[in-house]
């Protein structure tokens, strides 16, 4: 076990170790203690934030939702022709956010990208928590939410089934599948860490909590073997689910007769958009975790921001490609309603949103993320990530309420002005953060075993005067 190199290291080698977590190993016990300490160190600021967020969730989300249910959709801003408003914007947005989690975790795991190791958990949590917000958003939007179970296929005496022609039914099935599988996929790699936490917890309800959730994991070879194959299966299986989910969400729009929606490119366009916002969200979470939690500067380093920054840049380019592809094909199609709509996007009363979206989704990432120093700086990438998320939210706002303004019946065109959607949307954001805060106190946010495994596999070897990073295959 190569804890420390006995030979005096050169300045360059020391620099490499500082930079790369995988080359900067710590003893297992110490590392476990660091993670446990991060979990248990709670400042008063934390509780203030929790209290504030809880208040926002309580009033923004649940109280407003109660009003919405009691009064009807009239308290929201939806109207004819914008039958869908911010609720659906939020739904698509949160599903988009949830994508990056799986993308980072599963795809990077499958492709064995080593830099993923310290932040797979944070990303996976995002999938689950994001999907919860997406679910809330879509249920809020229903006129009679107390009948939401009618969307599920369940056996009943009248033989009433959901309509399998409807994209909303596809949506429900896809999102449910995604939520279940991503939760499983979050849980499996968590088991060894839960076991670690169990072993390092003295008593109290936490002990019970960890004992129950760790499923008696002891770390025997057989247990690891099963765990690894289960994780492998889920990692491979969840990738097509991820792609299908957002494709299906895009079909809500693409199969409709609306001008501007009826676009064949919407599937991949939505996926790349989802990744765009999701990566932005991941980088924001990491920046916050690194900045606020104890011992996290060791685990999350500029190299991670740098790597994710590169991905963001690539995704931004992909998004730009699909955006203009969609735009040009629709424009070239020459349908008069679509042309009116495209024109309305940029020159209507909210045309500035359209330009702002292009600015933050394309111009900003392209100009900032090229620079290695900038993309390694947490606060810079945090701002870029935030802007991208705002930009992507606006993109969905343009696709949904703004595009709904223009239809084939010009006598009915009406602007959409959001109402109670705003507190409800803020409520979902607060709940999302609150769930993260809760998770940071309950489960190890860093997959310790994965980091340790990586550190074991990595070493710095000297071939002549050259220091080379080597990785051995452990799995």
């Amino acid at each position, binding site marked *: 076990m190569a804890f420390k190199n006995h030979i005096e290291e050169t300045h360059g080698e020391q620099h490499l170790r500082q930079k790369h977590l995988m080359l900067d190993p710590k003893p297992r016990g110490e590392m476990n203690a660091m993670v446990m300490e991060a979990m248990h160190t709670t400042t008063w600021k934390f509780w203030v934030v929790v209290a504030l967020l809880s208040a926002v969730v309580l009033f923004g989300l649940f109280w407003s939702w109660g009003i919405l249910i009691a009064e009807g959709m009239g308290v929201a801003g939806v109207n004819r022709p914008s039958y869908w408003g911010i609720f659906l914007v939020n739904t698509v947005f949160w599903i988009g956010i949830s994508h990056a989690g799986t993308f980072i975790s599963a795809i990077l795991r499958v492709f064995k990208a080593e830099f993923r190791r310290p932040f797979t958990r944070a990303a996976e949590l995002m999938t689950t928590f994001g999907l919860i917000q997406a679910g809330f958003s879509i249920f809020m939007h229903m006129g009679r939410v107390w009948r939401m179970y009618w969307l599920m296929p369940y056996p009943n005496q009248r033989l009433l089934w959901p309509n399998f022609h409807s994209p909303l039914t596809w949506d429900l099935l896809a999102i449910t599948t995604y939520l279940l599988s991503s939760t499983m996929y979050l849980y499996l790699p968590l088991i060894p860490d839960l076991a670690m936490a169990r072993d390092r917890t003295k008593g109290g309800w936490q002990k019970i909590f960890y004992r129950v959730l760790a499923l008696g994991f002891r770390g025997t070879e057989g247990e690891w073997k099963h765990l690894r194959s289960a994780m492998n299966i889920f990692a491979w299986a969840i990738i097509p689910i991820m792609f299908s989910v957002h494709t299906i969400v895009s079909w809500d729009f693409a199969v409709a007769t609306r001008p501007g929606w009826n676009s064949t490119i919407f599937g991949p366009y939505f996926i790349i958009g989802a990744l765009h916002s999701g990566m932005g969200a991941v980088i924001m979470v990491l920046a916050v975790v690194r900045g606020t939690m104890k011992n996290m500067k060791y685990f999350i380093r500029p190299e991670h921001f740098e790597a994710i920054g590169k991905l963001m840049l690539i995704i931004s380019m992909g998004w730009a490609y699909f955006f203009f592809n969609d735009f040009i094909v629709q424009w070239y199609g020459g349908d008069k309603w679509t042309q009116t709509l495209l024109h309305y996007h*940029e020159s209507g009363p909210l045309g500035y949103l359209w330009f702002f979206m292009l600015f933050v989704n394309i111009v900003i990432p392209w100009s900032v993320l090229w620079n290695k120093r900038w993309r390694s700086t947490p606060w810079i990438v945090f701002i870029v990530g935030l802007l991208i998320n705002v930009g992507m939210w606006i993109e969905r706002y343009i696709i949904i309420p703004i595009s709904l303004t223009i239809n084939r019946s010009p006598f009915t065109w009406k602007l959409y002005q959001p109402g109670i959607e705003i507190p409800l949307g803020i409520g979902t954001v607060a709940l999302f953060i609150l769930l993260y805060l809760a998770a940071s106190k309950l489960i190890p946010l860093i997959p310790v075993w994965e980091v340790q495994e990586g550190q074991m596999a990595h070493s710095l070897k000297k071939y002549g005067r050259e220091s080379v990073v080597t990785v051995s295959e452990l799995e």
Partner: protein
Amino acid sequence: MKKKISRRDFLKLAGASAATGAALTGCGPSSRFVVREPYTQMPEYALIGESTFYATTCRECAAGCGLIVRTFQGRAIKVEGNKNNPVNLGKTCARGQATLQGLYNPDRVTDPLNQGRRKTLGTDGMNWDDAIKVVSDALANTDPAGIGFLLGMAPDHLFDLVSDLTAGIGAPAPVRYGALSAFEARATLVKAAENVLGQSGLPFFDLANAELTFSFGANFLETWLSPVAYTRGFSKMRKQGKRGYLVQFEPRMSQTGAKADEWIPVRPGTEGMVALALGKLIAESKKQTVPRAFVNVDVKAVAKESDVDEEKLHYLADLFADADRALAIPGGAALGQSNGLGTAEAVLALDALANNFGQPGGVFLSPAAPTEDNVHRPASLQEMAVFINKMNTGEIKTLLIHGVNPVFELPKSLGFEAALKNVPLVISFSTFPDETAILSDYIFPDHHGLESWGYQRVATGTSQSTLSGAQPVVSPFYNTQSTADVLLAASAIAGGKLASVLPFKDEVEYIQAQLIPLIENKDANFNAGEINSFSAYFQQFGGWWTNEAALLAPTQNTLNETLSVESPTYEGEGDFFLVPFVSPVLGEAGANKPSLQEVPDPTTTVMWNSWVEINPETAHEFGIKSGDIIKIVSNVGVIETSAYLYPAIRPDTIAIPFGQGHKAYGRYAAGRGVNPFDLLGLKFNAAGDIAFAGMKVQIIKTGKKFELARMESEIGVYGEGLGEE
């Protein structure tokens, strides 16, 4: 041929007519004393789960359309047109459809009230015995000359009853009035008919068979005279072999103008001059000698004054000259001018020139009403001014008001509200807590029209001589009483002369007495030997009408008399002509019906409010945007309302709908919109009608904004915000 129908036969008849969709009634005369009973004791003809249909008459305006009301377990559910009634032949307008929201309006006057001229509807309920005593005392103790009756526009049984009453005791005859009659300039039309057609009365224009129609301000598709009948005529006119062509002359495009093939925006008040110029050109085009009526016209001057190109005049004249069956209709805002009577005569002279008097597609006189030969028309505003003067001088001691809301329906400058203060006793019989009722000493609410008996003479709209019949379709919902019954009871209590004038037990007996002369006329929609059967049929068919057309051909031709239309003079100062018009949806009394408030105006699609129409060019000049609140200042008043940039109005004209601006009249009407009557000065034309469309006003931007509720999209219809110029 005496035929008595038993109750059983009667039910059979009722069933048969239900199957054929004809009118039927469940109420024989014996069931006229309507009692409110729980519905566990249903009338025997009402079957659970089956609807019962009653024929009656629409009271939303004075046209007298026949209705069939579907009732279900004692509730009125739906209003449909009476297919047999010759006025509307089964059709209704929006106002007729919404009449049930008047019946079931949450803001009706529920009990007789000692209102005491409070600011809001009083709560001081009375019982009907005391109420009748109040009326009785008022009638008995007032000097007959001091009794004033103010009734609604419709020539109905109550008008006849009150006429008999007043004639019997030597009181002044009842005055009928309605805002619609002012906006139609009915008095002018009747007077013009007298001067030009040889007989006083409302002309009947056979739109259905006209090949070309020139309409000078007549908004016959909306509210003018008998809109449903004229819409039917319009429909036939379009459907006939050669599609009829309609040209509308008016400064502001009305709904009728919107349906016209050509809309000629003449300067307000110059319609008659245009008609005269056209007359001259038509004669020239026909290569006839120009009749004396038109010789004095200077076409160039008319073109200049009316703002219609000379070329256009020539084109229109050729059109008229070449048409086989040409028709010219005077009406509405064209007659509500200082020179309105001249205009009406000039337009009718065009008909004379087209030689269409008494011809298909031409001009007739409406048939004589079945029970009354004299033409009674509603009072003109000049006559109302005389009446108000009598109130002010204290000549009228007791004022009884029914079916009209003069505080709302008269120009403010006439000062009716102030004059009310000079009348010692004001009794209102209003069904609703309207502005006038609130300012009365007592409100003795009448039943709603759908709860009452009655008949109404049809003044115009059909070629047959028609008496529309009314009967209760539901039992009275509130503690109301028929005004006719109240008057009869009050007279009986008063005794003496009063009692002898009206020796009738109740309203229905009076109505039957009035129907008796009709039994003799066998050439009608039904025949019966005696009055009980006759009145049963009368209710069942929803009225009585002759089988044959009873139109009269005009007897006179004034083409050889010189006609002249003097230049219009305008009341007030300002840059803009003000053209008020009756809201086609609300009419004068629709504002308290919520569903009607939400029916969009046909041309602007505005709901629930008032607006002022301004040409977009003008608005641009003044920096006015859609929804900006504009102050409109006339020499007598000021109102503020939102601007609607209306593409089809003259740049020098603004238009405001009448129908909103109530201060009372229930929750859906009160405090909503403005009343253009607040702006009108008192200038009358030669027939005594007010020159309502001959005002000059000033507009001022207030800087406030209120977006109107519109059905249409400003983005989609006007390109607002689409980034296109």
